Structure formats: C-alpha cells, structure tokens
C-alpha cells in the first residue's frame, strides 16, 4: 500500500515536470510561426491536428461510453456522481483560494467540503448550497492568472482538450493535491470524464452540430471563459483596449472606409472610392 502511494505521488511529480518541459519546448516555437493565424492561436495547425484526434476519441470512445452510462442511470444519479467528483477537487480549490489570499472563500470551500463529505454522504449530495453556503470554486491555473501570469498561446492537449501553457501547468498542479486512488486512478478519472460527457450530452452534441466552426467556437469560448474566471466575472481591471477592439465602430465605420493605410482596404479593390 505504502509502496503504491509513493509510486503514484512520484508519477504525479513526473507529470508536472513533463508539463513544464513541454511548455518550455513549445513557448520558443511561438516566435517562429507565420503571421496569418490569429494572434491567440499561433499553433493552430498543430492544435487542429490534436483537435481532430480528440474528436475521434470522443466519437468512437467517449460519446458511446457516455451513452451507455446514460442508458443505465437517470439524471439525478449522474448529477450525484458529478457532485462527488467536484467534491474531490476541494484540495485544489483550497490551495488556489489560499494562493490568492481569498481567506473568506477558503473558509467557505472548507466548510462546504466538511458538510458535503459528511452530511452530504461523501459529496454525493450538496446540502451546503441548500444552506446558503455557495461554492467559491477556483483551480490553481486561476491563481496563476490572478498573479498576473499570462496564458501563453492557445493549446489543445490530447485527451484533455482546450488549454494553454499556464493552465496546463495548473491542471497538473491540481492533480498533485487530488486524492489518491492507487491502481484504480485511471479508471476513476475516466469515470469522471464519462459522467461529465453524459451530463452535457445534448449541449455538446448541439454545439458540434450547430457551430459554424466547432474548433474556433470552443477556442473562443474557452479563452473568454477562462479570462472571466480569473477575474471572477468582474472585468473592471480589464484593459479598455480589449473592449475597443471588440466594440469599436472603427472596425466597420468611417476609419475603415477613409484610411488608406487600413489593412482592410488592401485586399478589396471596391473599397477604393
């Protein structure tokens, strides 16, 4: 038993080390890519390759398994299982809140963990929310973000999905404080993923079918949602320049027609009046 624990723990440190090495190898590559991709996704070709692979995994393994799981369970059971796994992620949330000096939220998360693990029977139920103690969930990547560490370029990770160098390190750090399931570790993780896929079955399948470009849909949603989470959905500190880019009428208005230096005019002969 003790031997297995040591083994698992050292394996986790090894994954952290490999994530850091991977990020170290990838970051310099950023400088050498061509400029015709979007600025937040300089590795788009590589990412789309991994994305394609992940879509195959989803189509042939994850979705069918999740459908099987859906067939033998009802929604309350799947929601309970989801709550159980969320409860297990308490240590990462605790560490992240602490790292951001959010002491009140650290206390809230601790209270939730204690209540839900005991009264809520190992986290299968969520009495804490019913009692008005609402979740203040954070992960370690969010703490990195709160310290001002940038995400780096968008990165699609095999099996894991949308990420970025900062949050990939965050995910592996989350993992260091995740409870140990010894030799069943992979099975437990897979179960969590399958259950999540089952819970979101309709939504994900709709997105896949209805998006104009599912890869870009997910990339944009992931990057925006991640940034909002780091700011706790309060973007008062945001650089107003970001907003000006998104909502400025110079993008389609007077400047675009009037300024010959504008890049928009160069590939459009009709733009010259």
């Amino acid at each position, binding site marked *: 038993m003790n031997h297995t624990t040591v083994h698992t723990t050292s394996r986790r440190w090894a994954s952290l080390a490999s994530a850091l090495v991977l990020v170290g190898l990838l970051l310099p590559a950023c400088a050498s890519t061509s400029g015709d991709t*979007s600025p937040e996704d300089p590795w788009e070709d590589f990412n789309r390759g991994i994305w394609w692979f992940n879509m195959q995994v989803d189509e042939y393994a994850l979705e069918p398994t999740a459908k099987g799981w859906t067939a033998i369970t009802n929604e309350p059971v799947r929601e309970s299982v989801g709550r159980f796994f969320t409860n297990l992620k308490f240590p990462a949330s605790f560490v992240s809140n602490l790292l951001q000096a959010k002491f009140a939220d650290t206390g809230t998360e601790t209270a939730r963990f204690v209540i839900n693990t005991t009264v809520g029977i190992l986290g299968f139920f*969520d009495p804490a*929310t019913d009692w008005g103690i*609402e*979740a203040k969930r954070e992960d370690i990547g969010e703490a990195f973000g709160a310290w001002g560490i940038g995400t780096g370029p968008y990165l699609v990770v095999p099996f894991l999905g949308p990420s970025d160098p900062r949050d990939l390190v965050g995910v592996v750090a989350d993992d260091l404080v995740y409870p140990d399931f010894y030799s069943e570790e992979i099975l437990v993780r897979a179960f969590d993923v399958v259950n999540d896929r089952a819970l979101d079955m309709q*939504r994900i399948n*709709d997105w896949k*079918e*209805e*998006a*104009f*470009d599912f890869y*870009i*849909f997910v*990339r*944009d*949603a992931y990057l*925006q*949602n991640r*940034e*909002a*989470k780091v700011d706790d*959905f309060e973007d*008062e500190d945001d650089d*107003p320049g970001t*907003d*000006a880019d*998104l*909502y*400025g*009428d110079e*993008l*389609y*208005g*007077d400047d*675009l*027609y*009037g300024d010959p230096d504008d*890049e*928009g005019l160069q590939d*459009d002969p*009709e*733009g010259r*009046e």
Partner: protein
Amino acid sequence: MKPTHTLRLALLPLLALCAAATAGAVPATPDPGPRETIRAATDDVVAALRAELPYADRLAGVEAALTAHVDFNTVSKLVLARNWKKLDEAQQRAFEIAFRRHLVLTYWKNAAEASFDEIEITKDRDEGRGDWTVKTEVGLTGAPLLMDYRLRKFGEGDGADWRIIDIIIEGVSMVSNFRSQFQEVFGNSGAQGLIDAVIEKNQLMSEKQRLAADEEDG
C-alpha cells in the same frame, strides 16, 4: 458616397422592421436607462417564451421582443467587423436578417436550457464611449447562469434609446465568438457562402427546436 449615408441607408430596413415589430408597443418613458431596458427586454422575452402558442408563433414573438431591444444592425456590423464592407447592400441586408434569426434561435436554445423563472439584475457599469453593461443572473438555485448585456445609447435627449449590442454568457461574448467563426467561414467561402451557411444553420436549429417543442406540448 459618404460613409454616414451608407450607414443611414443600412439602418433604413432595420428601422422599418422595428416599426413593424413594435407597432402599438411604444415605451412609456422617453429615456429608460440601461437597467430598465434590460428589465423590459427580459420581461418581454419571457412572456413570448411562455405564450401558449405553437413553436413558430412563440419564436416569432421572441424575435419581435428581441428586435424591440437589440440593435441587430450594429450587432451585424460588429460581428462581421472588417468584412462588413465587403458585402454589397443586398448582402448586408440578407446577412442581417439571417443573423438576427440565428441569434433568436441561439437565445431560444439557452432559454430552454436555463430555467428563466427568475432573472435578477445584479450590477451595471459604465463602459465609456456611450456603452453600458448590465449584469444578470438567471435561475437562482445553486449556480446561476451569468448573462451580461452590453448596451449602447442611440440618439440624444428625448429620442435617446438604450439598445443591446452584445450578450455575454458566462464571460463569453456572442459578438466575439461569432466574429471569430465568421472570419473563418468568410475566408473560406466568401460573403454569399457565409450568408448561406447562416441560413442553413437556422433551418437545422429551428427544425430541432420545433420537434423538441412539439414533444413538450405532447
């Protein structure tokens, strides 16, 4: 042609549509603030969603309610950004109509997922440049859905009007999300290809929603 004229010309069909959609529903106060606009918009949309009518009529009701409060012309321009001027006027009009329908269908889908029982306006914030953000929380049990609206003031004095120019769901701006996807589609298949793609997705979504709504009604 001067740009301001182009802008006005592009606005004309929208104004006509708005007038048609809101005939007889003139707002009581001349200059409601952003919060009041969101309160009115969400009330109108929820009423349209809950109407005891077949799917197509309810959808038309939601479209009319949103058209009264969303500036679809500005939204269309923001979403296409630099590509907007590459569409001729007929294409701009066709895109605007198709994309308005697309946003209505997207809104419907989110409304069907989240229970629109309770919408709480939590905060609002001046964004500068005449824009304002109103934050709302939908469904108050457990984790509420965070829906923010960005509004822009059109006109001055008594004729001033706050209109929605973006909806931000869980931190994800619809303008940004569609913009990045449309850039890709536009680059691959051009203006007409993009318009056709929007129309095609609309048919797919409305067909699915109609089936789901029929099922619910029994």
